[in-house]
């Protein structure tokens, strides 16, 4: 079927203002939007810039706005969109570098702020694993799935207004460690998230959860962090 792609274009070197280009191409209902972008670059306009790698929703390269909503281009099929007119735009709230490529720097800055790594300076048992029951692991299973695609953070109305807000992805990655029974740094991590730019900025707008291509219950994770903060001993309030 004939499909129309309207793609956001911006080229920093030609100094031009952002505009939209339209391409018409033949598509199967089961084509990924990423396949269409590939075809545009291959056969219509080689200058189109977008990131991609795995093409099946596990590397997090190609989050973008498709018909007004954040998706991974490789995880949404033409038939899922229910229309043959497809508008493709870069993520909102991050600086656009070229066409559909955005600067992920601010996103990863927020990620790094929450200490996204296991902290446990006790000697691990020599030549053995640290034990963790399936029930303990279940507590943070959901948030280990994050592929850092930024679909959530750039769909969040609070983040649009305030780029200092750490955003759902950073909170998800903090959650992954706060609730890991092996970790010992929940306190400093919670302290980061207790700042005005942390979890309290979340207004439960829920766009993040709807956008997450890994089906992570993002808002729930944020709520769990909030609860951990509310229930935390006052001693943590330094």
């Amino acid at each position: 079927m004939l499909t129309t792609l309207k793609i956001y274009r911006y080229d920093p070197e030609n100094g031009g203002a952002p505009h939209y280009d339209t391409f018409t191409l033949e598509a199967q209902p089961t084509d990924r939007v990423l396949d269409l972008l590939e075809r545009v670059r291959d056969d219509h306009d080689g200058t189109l810039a977008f990131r991609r790698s795995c093409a099946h929703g596990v590397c997090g390269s190609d989050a973008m706005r498709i018909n007004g909503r954040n998706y991974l281009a490789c995880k949404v099929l033409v038939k899922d969109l229910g229309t043959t007119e497809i508008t493709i735009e870069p993520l909102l709230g991050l600086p656009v570098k070229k066409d559909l490529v955005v600067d992920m720097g601010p996103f990863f800055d927020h990620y790094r702020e929450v200490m996204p790594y296991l902290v446990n300076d006790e000697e691990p048992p020599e030549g053995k694993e640290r034990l963790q029951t399936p029930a303990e692991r279940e507590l943070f299973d959901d948030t280990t799935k994050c592929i850092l695609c930024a679909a959530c953070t750039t769909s969040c109305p609070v983040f649009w207004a305030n780029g200092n807000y750490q955003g759902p992805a950073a909170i998800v990655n903090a959650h992954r460690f706060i609730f890991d029974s092996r970790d010992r740094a929940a306190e400093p991590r919670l302290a980061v998230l207790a700042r005005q730019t942390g979890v309290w900025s979340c207004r439960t707008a829920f766009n993040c959860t709807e956008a997450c291509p890994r089906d992570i219950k993002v808002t729930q994770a944020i709520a769990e962090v909030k609860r951990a903060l509310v229930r935390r001993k006052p001693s943590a309030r330094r």
Partner: protein
Amino acid sequence: MTQKHSFDVIVVGGGGAGLMAALFASQTAKTAVLSKLHPVRSHTGAAQGGIGAALGNLEEDHWEWHAYDTVKGSDYLGDQDAIEFMCQEAIRAVYDLEHFGLPFSRTPDGRIAQRPFGGHTNNATGKPVRRSCYAADRTGHMILQTLYQQCVRRETIFFDEFYVLDLLLENGAVAGVVALELATGELHLFQAKAVIFATGGHGRMWEITSNAYAYTGDGVAVTLRRGIPAEDMEFFQFHPTGIYKLGILITEAVRGEGGVLINDKGERFMEHYAPHIKDLASRDVVSRALHLEMQAGRGIGGQRYVYLDVRPETVNHYAALDGRTRPDGSPYRVTAEEIQAKIPDIIDFCRTYLGVDPVKEPMPVQPTAHYAMGGIPTDINGRVVGDERGTVVPGLYAAGECACVSVHGANRLGTNSLVDLIVFGKAAGQDAARYAAGAGFQPLPADAEDFARQQLEHLRHGAGTERPAEIRREMQRLMFEQVGVFRTQEGLEQAVRQLQDLRARCRQVRVSDQGRAYNYELVNTWELGNLLDLALVTAESALARRESRGAHAREDFPRRDDENWLRHTLARLEGDRVTLSYKPVTITRYQPRERTY
């Protein structure tokens, strides 16, 4: 203007192998990681099933068994000293990962959970053994994330979206690399005492592949251009279960959990090909079986696919027939919920891309180009070996899928690549740091980046009219048809001829994007050139090897020929000419035997 940087160790690639190398090298040496993708986008994140290590958490297991299975899986082409080293180290490596924070799935008593995988057996009984340590079906994702997290913790220096174009050798030793910064289109010169390549595989030269767009064999192509041979390139693994037409991988863990392959007649055909471990035979065996079934018209509806069936009723039916039991001895039975919990991502892929729910319907699968056994020849310390006599290239290292140690020989066992990354990534990182501590910088010539610059200029401003996408598609189709699961003399000769044509045409390409920032067209075209180099080497190596071994199956030479071919291929590329030489296989305790499953 070219920017210059200087580091003791440069790691090229931010996947599992690269990050592991960086973590260990940076402990003592000034280290930086250059990666064309942001590290968390690396293809290690796509690995699903697990990482093999004889922890014996659920039943008896020994690293020697793991080593034997690996040797046998490799069809005796693997170097046994390296295999023994890897299987021993695997245990440590898995615990290291756990200590780094990797969220493995757990046994009820809190230890790392393990599951069966193709080719992993109890050596005493020949039955499948639970050796694959896993985190649901996202083991690679967890490894990649965990290693990246540790790098964040240790403030590893990254140059993200830097594309390495060239390796600089001076006086026979490493001097540095040349890289293109994607964001600006500028060239950077990195001076280094040691360079570790960890650039992953090159499955994108085939039409149907489980591999990422980024899998274009850059590391092997760069070293090949600089006179380093490529080892065993004819051995490329086709995974039996890729999603029909898309090639997206359905992990072997699906069969480990009890899934079976079914042909058009409703038969579990693997019974005929591997009477002992059936669906869990080694990948080359299963891929060939699929191919033969389809050739005989027993693909579903006569098409080129069969069914992979993991519906609980099917699993339970065949588990009962096989007499399969749980660790406690009770009969093996699964429910839809258990399947869902063990392979959530696979189920998600099938729903998304096929509209098929694997718990209710079987999945259409076909063999998909998956893994490069061959690559840059190295020793067990990751040092690149530049010739058949074992001469080490000072300062040059390789690890991960782009390297060939060789532990996978003619056919890699499932879960062994992740082991390879961790074990040899670490070894390479440590050895590179040690080397850098005792070595000085090689002087950089004034024209260091000229080669890369000229090539880029040629692509940008050449007079040609060829379109890179056309050439790429033709190459992919050609390779899938002629250099696929089964190969013949005529097919390979034809492939070589046509590849030469394609290479000639590729010299006439011209990219339309004249810009600098994020010029992906330029990069993709460069990658096409790399793939064509490796495709030619692959086809020539395959043409010369007149036997069938592991993943290399010749219809005209169906038997393994240890007398003439128990040896590694080393291919060199000069211009359009491939020259081949050979080196012996290291054998310690496992003598070549017939391989049956």
